[in-house]
Structure formats: structure tokens, C-alpha cells
């Protein structure tokens, strides 16, 4: 099942700034909501995101409950070489997901 979508150009020119858009399926339960009986619904969120380009981290983020459900992040990087861009999401209750996309740089 689709747990995340990464969007970036399949190819780019060396030195070009490309935009990376990462969208993950996650409810981001804040920990502030209560059931109809008053019990707190425990927090369950993605807490961090990291993006690597051929193994080197180029962007990362710490996320808090104020990030909306199905968290979306858009950021940029310079296309330096062909290879793999990998995004990793980690969070509460052992949540962990990595998705990779290939990029061709000429």
C-alpha cells in the first residue's frame, strides 16, 4: 500500500537546483485529542525526516504534533550526480519508512 510519495525530476542538469516533495501517509495523532469518554488518545506522530543523496544527508527535519496529518515536506537540493535520493521517516511506536528514487544527472 502507498505509504509515501516522493516527487522529484527524473533527470536534471549538473548544478541545477531541483525541488523534492515528500508526502507520507500518517495520521499524526497529536496526543491532545480525547475520546468521547475523556481519555487522552496517545500521541502517535512522525518525529523526524531525513533525505540522503547517494548516502549523504542533504536535508532533515524534526516534526512535532503541529505538523498536519499526511505530512508534506518540500525542499530543494543541487543536482550533483546521478544516483539515489532516499527519504526516511521515523516516528512513535517504532514507525520507520524509507523510500528511494533514482535521479539521472548529466
Amino acid at each position: 500500500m502507498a505509504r509515501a510519495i516522493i516527487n522529484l525530476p527524473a533527470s536534471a542538469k549538473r548544478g541545477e537546483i531541483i525541488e523534492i516533495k515528500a508526502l507520507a501517509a500518517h495520521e499524526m495523532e497529536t496526543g491532545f485529542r480525547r475520546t468521547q469518554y475523556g481519555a487522552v488518545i496517545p500521541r502517535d506522530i512522525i518525529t523526524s525526516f531525513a533525505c540522503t543523496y547517494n548516502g549523504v544527508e542533504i536535508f532533515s527535519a524534526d516534526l512535532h504534533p503541529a505538523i498536519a496529518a499526511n505530512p508534506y515536506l518540500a525542499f530543494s537540493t543541487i543536482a550533483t550526480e546521478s544516483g539515489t535520493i532516499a527519504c526516511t521517516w521515523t516516528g512513535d511506536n517504532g514507525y520507520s519508512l524509507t523510500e528511494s528514487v533514482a535521479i539521472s544527472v548529466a
Partner: protein
Amino acid sequence: MNTDSTRRNARREFLLAAGGIAAGIALESAAAPPPIRAAASRAAASAEATQQAIRKITGAAPVNKGKVRLELPELVDNGNAVPLAVRVESPMTPTDYVKAIHVFTQKNPLPDVASFRLGPRAGRASVATRIRLADTQTVIAICELSDGSFWSGSADVVVTIAACLEEI
């Protein structure tokens, strides 16, 4: 399948009881709404919490106003998902770049929203995401440059609740 009903029930009851006074979300259970004085002191407490959260990032260093631009709707369609973009004026060279961007709110239950770590490889100091806003408030972004200086920008946003709720 119960979504936001309890949060909204608590909020609705609080707002209806508080009458025409602009108020934040009642975070306690859906029992008797807290008195006005408590609401005012809670607002003050969260402003202090926001300052503390900012100080945790900046330490004793001064925070300059400028360079940081927040793009947010002035009136949100829904406080559950408010598109936010933060852009910082910076050449993003290996010697002059944005190290990090930190976003805070003043009236959410927690002041921290997100911290983004960039670097010269970003090419552009620009990030976008979607955030939750509990109430009409100011959103603040603090950026940390490679020379260790801090710069800030902010934007005011008006937040309403949905007119017709799913559950009473």
C-alpha cells in the same frame, strides 16, 4: 470511527459558554469550561512557553528581525492543514548559508512546530509544509545562519472552525 468530535465538542462547549469572547481551544475534558481569568493566564503561559522554546534554540544570542519570509494564508480554510512556506534570503554558498529554520506558534498546545536543517547543498533556503493551527495567532520562524546569527520573521493568521460539525 470517531475523528475530531471530542476535540470539537470541548471547543464548542467552551466557545458557546464563553459567549462572544475570542477564546482558544478548551484542552481539558468536555466538562465545565474554565473561567475567563484562567483563559487569559493560559494565553500568557503559552507566550512564555513560546519564548522558552525559542531561547532553547538561540540561547542568549540576539535574534534579528529580517531575512525570513513566511507565506501563510491570512484566513485559513481549515486549521487542520495550513500550507506554510518559509523562505530565507541567503546566497547558500559553502561559506554563507542557512543552517536551520525553526517554526513556532504562540497559541498551539505546544510552541514547537518543526525544525528544518539545510546546508549549502540546498541551493535555495526554502521549505514548505502544512501545519495545524489551533486558533487565530502568530506563526514565527527563526533561522540560524552559518555565521551563527539568528534571524526571525512572523505572520498573523486567522483560524475559524468548520461550520457544520460531523457529530453533535
